[in-house]
Structure formats: C-alpha cells, structure tokens
C-alpha cells in the first residue's frame, strides 16, 4: 500500500511551515483582498546591521499586509524566521507597532480591525539590543490597546518558535494558535542550559524540549488556545474563526490570581513532569482567552 493511500489528506495538504514569511501572511487572506504595507521596494531596512558587517533585508524581516479575512478587516504582521532568526530590531519593531496602532485607530473609529501576528522569532535582535528591547515594550503596549477593541491573534507555527521578548507579546494576545512542531517559551533551551547548567535543562534533548515548549504541551496547559495541524488551509480557517469571534472575553494575562494560585499549589519538593502538569492545569477550562 502506498503512503498516499494511508495518509491521503496529510500528504496532499499544503504545509504552512514550508511557506516563507510573506507567503504565510498572504495565505491567510481572502483571495486578492490584501495589500502589503512598507514592502521590500520601500527599502526601509535596518541601518544598524551593515555597520556590523551583516547584510540587511529590504523589509527588515517584517512583513505587514492589510486586507480582509473572512470578509472582516485585518492586518497580518509576519516575522521571517530565516532572516536573523526573526529577531526584532528597530525597523521591524516599528513596523509591527505602527501596524497595531493603526488597527487600534481604525477600530476606535468604528472599523474593527483584527491583528494576526505570525511569530517566528528568538526575540530581541542582539545587534540592536536597546532599540529591540524598546520595540518589544512598544509592541506589548500596542497589543494591550488593540485587544480591547479587536482580537490580536498570535500564530506560532515553527520551526523557529517564539522566544524571548516576543513570547511576552504572545502571552498578552487574545488568542494563541500553535502547531505541534512549534515551540513557545520565555527562555529558549540553549539559554536555560547556559544559565542554569545541563542538569537543569539539556538543550540537545529534543523530546524534553518539545515536552516543555512544544505546541501540544502549551495548548494542553492552557497557555495557548488551539493546536492546529501544519496545513495552510486549516490554519487560515482557525484564524478566520478567531477574527470572527472578536475580542477575548477574559485575557490570559488578566488571570493573575488563577496563575499565582496554580504556581503556589505546585509541589516543588519533587520533579514535576510535563504530562502531569498538563493534566492538572488543563482541568481548569476557564484558562485562556478562548476557553
């Protein structure tokens, strides 16, 4: 029996992960219902990278596209994971912040505009450290402003994942969508190993990494809302549902007491394993924006 007969749908699907940043953004919109803003031919690129001997990219690895998703206004900001690890610099941060602020302005004026953030990023671009940190703060405050009016949907598809400062942006989003290939965490595996030693976290142990940071675990723990297969059409339809659903009833980042209580209740005298934590935390169906 051929592979196609066993997994016909899986084999014939169009992978989302295999698309580049621009194609990912385009794939979410209704047909021919989008325009790219500040595209590569506008040549708004990082002035800091060439000074450090690194070739810049004409869109600074940040693609902003506005249009209609399921007939509703939306802006998609996509980070290109292949360029400098999708890192946030001065220009890419400013593009993301401006897109979110314009969506807030339109939403306040009565034209609700959702934002979709496709985050494939290691966080702040080290070559632009302070500007990158400032950009993260601006992005987060812009998300907080927009999410009251319209949904801010973060998608972490992989394979870079979403780490560092941008994981905070994911944390304050209305909804988080992940694939099981994706990873989401504040500190990446290498950083944890480097800071706390290999006994704390072995960054070469892929099973361990996905058991902690992986999409299945994050959704299972209620830290992300939807686990979607790596299929461009399934991801697009999940996004359409969230755009249609509107702002979250209660955001994850507002449930301070719930999370404080959960952490206080943990028994740290013994090693906590990812699976039991998932079972314990998933029992509360109120966690997360969409739940």
């Amino acid at each position: 029996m051929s592979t196609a007969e066993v997994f016909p749908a899986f084999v014939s699907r169009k992978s989302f992960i295999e698309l580049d940043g621009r194609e990912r953004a385009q794939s979410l919109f209704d047909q021919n219902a989008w325009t790219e803003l500040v595209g590569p031919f506008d040549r708004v690129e990082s002035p800091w990278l060439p000074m450090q001997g690194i070739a810049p990219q004409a869109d600074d690895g940040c693609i902003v596209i506005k249009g209609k998703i399921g007939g509703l206004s939306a802006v998609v900001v996509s980070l290109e994971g292949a360029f400098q690890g999708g890192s946030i610099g001065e220009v890419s941060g400013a593009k993301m912040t401006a897109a979110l602020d314009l969506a807030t302005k339109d939403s306040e004026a009565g034209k609700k505009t959702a934002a979709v953030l496709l985050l494939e990023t290691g966080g702040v671009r080290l070559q632009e450290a302070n500007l990158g940190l400032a950009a993260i703060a601006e992005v987060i405050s812009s998300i907080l402003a927009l999410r009251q009016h319209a949904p801010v949907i973060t998608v972490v598809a992989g394979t870079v994942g979403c780490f560092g400062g941008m994981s905070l942006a994911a944390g304050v989003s209305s909804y988080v969508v992940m694939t099981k290939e994706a990873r989401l965490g504040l500190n990446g595996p290498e950083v944890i190993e480097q800071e706390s030693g290999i006994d704390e976290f072995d960054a070469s142990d892929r099973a361990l990494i996905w058991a902690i940071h992986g999409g299945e675990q994050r959704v299972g723990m209620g830290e992300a809302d939807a686990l979607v297969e790596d299929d461009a059409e399934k991801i697009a339809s999940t996004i359409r549902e969230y755009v249609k659903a509107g702002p979250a009833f209660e955001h994850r980042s507002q449930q301070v007491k719930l999370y404080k209580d959960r952490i206080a209740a943990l028994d740290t005298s013994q090693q906590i394993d990812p699976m039991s934590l998932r079972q314990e935390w998933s029992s509360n169906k109120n966690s997360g924006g969409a739940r």
Partner: protein
Amino acid sequence: MEQIEFDYPAANRHITKKAHVGVVGSGDMEVLMEPADGDGARVTITTSVNGFQDSWKAVFDRFFSKFDGAVKIQINDAGATPGSVLLRLEQAVEVIEQ
C-alpha cells in the same frame, strides 16, 4: 560585508514589472528586480561574505548573456552559492515576465 556594483549597458529591453524573491537567510539571498532608471542594467550587491567579486562577475556575465532586460537589480546576500544566485535571478525573471 562588501558592496559590489556592475553595469550591463547592452541590456536595453524595456521592462515594466517588479519582482522580489528570496530571503537573506544562511546560504540564501534576496533579489529586488525593477525597471532601470535609465538605459542598460545595473546590479548592486550587498554581501556578508567578502572576496568573491570575481564569482559574482562570472554569474552576472552568464545571466546577462541570456537576459537583455533593462533592470535595476539589488541583492542582499547571506552566502548564497553561485548556483543559488542564478536560480534566484531566474526566479525573479519569471516573475517580471509573467
């Protein structure tokens, strides 16, 4: 990092479209191809790998031996091999000739 420029005055066919292909990722590059401002084609390369001016020249000599469009080409390169460079250029031509 190095900046390299080439001129190909013989490439004079009028072009109307723009193309952007590729990503500045390891072993890859991006190409911005658009109609030239004046006569002839002009190539501007920003590459993070130094010392390969002759290889770039060879790739573009070959490219412009077949292609005659008056285009302005800008390349941001993160170590693409000559083979990948030619493929990216052909991909960009495919977009503008569509």
